[in-house]
């Protein structure tokens, strides 16, 4: 189950450092995700989880370290080559970030037209399929403001999937949602995992991390403090700080 060694890594992060001015947010992070594997990242607020994901598709500049996609370094790519890599790495955000001036369908169709150069008709046909896949065919023509948070997040997932990404990054995608809406989104993610999508998931949903992940990373103060199979990490963490964190989130 361990992500190191067994099989080729789809995504590998090696010795990653990130500073915001004086603040050293990532202090040498190593992660490796096999093709088709799901790796969850848990940890206290401010430990650098979002920053880690944002560095992977270079929404943040990287100070040191390397990121490999299919074992090819992508750390120093720029311009069109970087855009190309971003297509291969889908990202879903905590606050959805849907385009508010466009309908659900157009949100999914826009990148198909702009990035993949599809015709409007083809893009909308494909967008409709994707919305169906996340259970939102009926909402295709609604603006985001008329959708619930859970529906918006599923549109955002469909939009990311439109680029046929090889890896998906999820940054606490359910933590802005009302509790009763979380399940729908998690179900979509479970489906994706079952279909063999490679996923790096930052989450506060411990049951999801436990059930779906191949590996769980516990981050604290900018390093991976502990890593392991969910069965071990959740039941018998080796580190005191992991234990304290789990105590707090599992028995609030």
């Amino acid at each position, binding site marked *: 189950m361990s992500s190191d060694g067994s099989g080729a890594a789809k995504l590998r992060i090696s010795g990653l450092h990130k500073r915001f001015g004086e603040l050293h947010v990532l202090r040498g992070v190593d992660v490796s995700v096999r093709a088709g594997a799901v790796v969850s990242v848990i940890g206290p607020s401010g430990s650098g989880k979002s920053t880690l994901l944002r560095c992977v598709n270079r929404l943040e500049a990287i100070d040191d370290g390397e990121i490999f996609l299919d074992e090819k370094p992508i750390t120093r790519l720029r311009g*069109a080559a970087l855009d190309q890599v*971003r297509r291969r790495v889908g990202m879903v955000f905590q606050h959805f*970030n849907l385009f508010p001036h466009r309908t659900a369908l157009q949100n999914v169709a826009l990148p198909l037209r702009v*990035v993949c150069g599809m015709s409007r008709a083809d893009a909308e046909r494909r967008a409709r399929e994707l919305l169906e896949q996340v259970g939102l065919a009926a909402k295709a023509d609604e603006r985001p403001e008329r959708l619930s948070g859970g529906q918006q997040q599923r549109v955002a997932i469909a939009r990311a999937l439109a*680029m046929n990404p090889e890896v998906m990054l999820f940054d606490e995608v359910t933590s802005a949602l009302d509790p009763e809406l979380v399940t729908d989104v998690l179900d979509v993610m479970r489906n994706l995992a079952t279909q063999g999508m490679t996923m790096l998931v930052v989450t506060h949903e411990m049951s999801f991390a436990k059930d779906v992940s191949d590996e769980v990373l516990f981050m604290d103060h900018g390093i991976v403090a502990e890593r392991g199979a969910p069965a071990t990490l959740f039941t018998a963490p080796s580190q005191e700080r992991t234990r304290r964190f789990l105590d707090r989130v599992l028995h609030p």
Partner: protein
Amino acid sequence: MDVFLAQYFDLTVIRDNFDKVLLGFWVTVQLSLIAGAFSLIWGLVLALARTTRSRALLPLRVMAIGYIDVFRGIPLLLVVLLISGSLPFISFLPAWIRAPHLFGRPDVYWFGVASLTITYGAYLAEVYRAGIEAVPRGQTEAARSLGMSQSSALRHVVLPQAVRTVVPPLLNDFIALMKDTSLVQVIGVVEVVRAGREVQGETFNSSALTLGAVMFLLITMPLARIVDRRLNNGRQRLSGGLA
């Protein structure tokens, strides 16, 4: 009271000079629309230069900042005088700039359009900039994470949202521009105020100017209502969305 009415609302003066004032107003409308359209484009160009984050375009950004500061900071009348008084004598400029006689209009007409565009381009650039900066960062990030280039994200995601939010202030500035066209008369363009003033000089009566004022109001008042309505709708949508 009668003197007041006679000075400002003399129907004979209004009737006799209606055509002349209307012709002047037509020039006012033309100047407003042409300079307005050019300012919309020029302001957007300036705003894009002003907001670029690209290091290679830094000089452009600095120039845009300088330009905007200068032309927001000096009176339009000064720009009108600077342009019309000296452009014709700068011999190395091409003739169409020194003495523009395009589409059968005299050079002063185009100097007026140029002055208005130069000044209002700077105003509108700041309006656009506010709109661009009001679009949340997450929008660009979502677009980029899908593989859109910086320019695609700008064009398909940021600008459509920015422009939508700045329609009311843009209309406000259009009203201001329309009123400011009256400054162009100092270089000899006979727009509505100049037309009214000529009548005033001949008749010692201001009723033609009153007529000009009414013509202005027929355009500016509905525009102001549209601005109000759009601002209200925007606020309602915002509070509805948060509720």
